[in-house]
């Protein structure tokens, strides 16, 4: 690759395809976290839940040789992790951020322990091929130029395309979605209207955990076909930023994920572009670009009003509001 490559269309097509691949697990986890935060919970434990999804999905794929069973298992495991988070924070009123951080430690330990006990040595674990083959959609993948990048991808990518409007619909057009948002903005008001705050929040976090698990399994099963300790590598924290960047709106969250994926794909290609850019600084490019875009493009930060406050059924709010909207 050279500087000249930037003029070639094939470069941009491969960049687009790579951006989508990198973005897919982020999209799943971010959609889930969007719902969770709209409900008033801040789940810093996304990283751990993705790791649990990765290890359980991988093990299920390894033993069942069936990708869909693997994703199902990952979703179930993620949901359980979400439920644990929910029980601690919603029912017991534990601080959400601390719970999330500690759950990360616990989940990463569990994932490592489970994998170690399943295989005596990683050298005995051959690579999986379960769904790494792309599935070209008929007709759509023949669209000139972008057809292959958009529509000759892993089936998980198409699932991500579908889930974005589904989540939008869920939040904006269903009673459950409206309840969820009410609970995240004014739990007392929602409570007085007869909405069961606890139940909605628990449902939201279970969904969030499920999506995080799916995200982790996407990398382990669909993209690579292996599990390695530490493979989530901070994506869970990127998800937290993506949700805010996308303004808690599923469409914009998906776009933010794609943006981040594109920055990452670009950075890798710049390293081999022969342009003499420092290999060791380029890995920082996605983070820098995100900051620049946030400063000049994204609007005001606006977490749901009741975020990170345990609802204790008598309107007892304990924690100072997160990121108060101050105009002073």
């Amino acid at each position, binding site marked *: 690759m050279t500087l000249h490559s930037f003029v070639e269309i094939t470069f941009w097509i491969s960049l687009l395809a*790579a951006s989508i691949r990198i973005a897919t697990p982020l999209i799943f986890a971010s959609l889930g976290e969007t719902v969770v935060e709209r409900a008033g919970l801040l789940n810093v434990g996304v990283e751990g839940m993705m790791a649990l999804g990765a290890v359980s999905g991988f093990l299920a794929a390894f033993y069942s040789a069936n990708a869909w069973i693997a994703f199902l298992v990952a979703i179930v495991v993620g949901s359980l992790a979400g439920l644990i988070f929910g029980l601690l924070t919603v029912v017991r009123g534990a601080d959400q951020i601390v719970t999330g951080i500690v759950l990360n430690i616990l989940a990463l330990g569990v994932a490592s322990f489970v994998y170690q006990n399943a295989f005596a*040595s990683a050298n005995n674990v051959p*690579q999986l091929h379960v769904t790494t083959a792309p599935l070209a959609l008929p007709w759509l993948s023949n669209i000139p130029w972008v057809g292959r990048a958009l529509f000759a991808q892993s089936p998980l990518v198409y699932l991500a395309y579908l889930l974005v409007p589904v989540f939008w619909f869920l939040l904006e057009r269903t009673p459950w979605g409206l309840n969820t948002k009410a609970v995240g903005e004014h739990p007392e008001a929602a409570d007085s209207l007869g909405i069961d705050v606890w139940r909605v929040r628990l449902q939201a976090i279970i969904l969030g955990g499920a999506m995080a698990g799916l995200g982790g399994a996407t*990398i382990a099963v669909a993209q*690579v076909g292996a599990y390695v300790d530490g493979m989530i590598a901070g994506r869970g924290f990127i998800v937290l930023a993506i949700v805010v960047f996308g303004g808690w709106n599923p469409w914009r969250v998906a776009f933010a994920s794609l943006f981040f994926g594109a920055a990452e*794909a670009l950075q890798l*290609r710049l390293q081999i572009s022969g342009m003499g850019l420092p*290999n060791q600084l380029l890995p920082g490019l996605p983070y820098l670009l995100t900051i620049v875009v946030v400063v000049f493009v994204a609007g005001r930060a606006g977490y749901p009003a009741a975020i990170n406050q345990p609802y204790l059924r008598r309107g007892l709010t304990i924690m100072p509001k997160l990121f108060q909207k101050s105009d002073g």
Partner: protein
Amino acid sequence: MKSLEKLIPLVAAGVGMAGVVLSGAGSAAVAAEVKSAYIPCGQVNDGSWSQAGYEGMKAAKQALAKDGIELTVDYTENLTPAKAEAAARDYATRGYQTIVLHCGTFADAAYNAGKDFPKSNFLIVVAPKSVDNVWSYIPAMQDISFVSGFLAAKMSKTAAVGVVASFNFSNVTWQAEGFRLGARYANPKIKTYSTYINSFDDVGKAKEAAQAELDSGADVIYSATDQASRGIFAATEAAGALAVASYSDQASLAPKTVLASALANIPLLVGNVVQMSVKGSLEKSKVYAIGMAGGIGALAMNPEMQQKVPADVMKEVAKLTDDIKAGRLKVPALSEPGKSEQFDLKNLTSK
């Protein structure tokens, strides 16, 4: 009988004292039962760097058993540099005679612990110097990486190969640049790519890095990424390209795409230095930097792929290996990414 019984402790004491006197030259004294500890970066079953070192510990144990020395090998895993020092000091406090720190980032831990615990031997990988009771051992992997690059270039149909590496740390960069240099030696016009992913375990990123190189035309990718190599295999297999693994024979993990594995014979190196440490034969201030001339570095071909490699290519690889072992060709240790592109190939064989 009674007099014999009384004699035994005296003899034992005599032998013990003799041992103490004789040990003044280099390392700490030896006993029939010795405890050793292994402190790696990752996990002992990771199929990569950390496992290779552990295999070395076990090999030392077996070899020493033949000499009547019973070596216990204990280990801890997944440590940060701070914890590594705490671990090293802890083992030393408990009387462990040989403590192996198998991670490039643990150098300070080794030197600091070594100062406070003179009775134990500390073996540290890829460290700048050997001081008192701390010895550095370095697998000079640029040799075998060079050979891998040579093979890769010969096998490449697109005259482009690449390497995906973890961090720009000396030990890793030597390999990456060694690979690229070897490729150039085979084909001076070849294009070589190198990408750093800043991680040992981000398999997703490794895959995308490999894919970016494949998109640019490379068709053989060398892995200098420890456990994250899985990502590289996923990319190369899907594209019908070839991969070269490192540290351990990973052909069984992805038999359809792994052409060969660049073995650093780390088990051999670790096994040897541990044995020397236990026996007290480590030379003072010597850094055990060993390349192919010393037996460190071998190419393990994937039997399933063997038929794809033309016989004359294998002959050339064998000759190259011989040249390096005999010192006729010296592979430089390049620590800066990109230096291999400017290196004058003639300097490889000049005296």
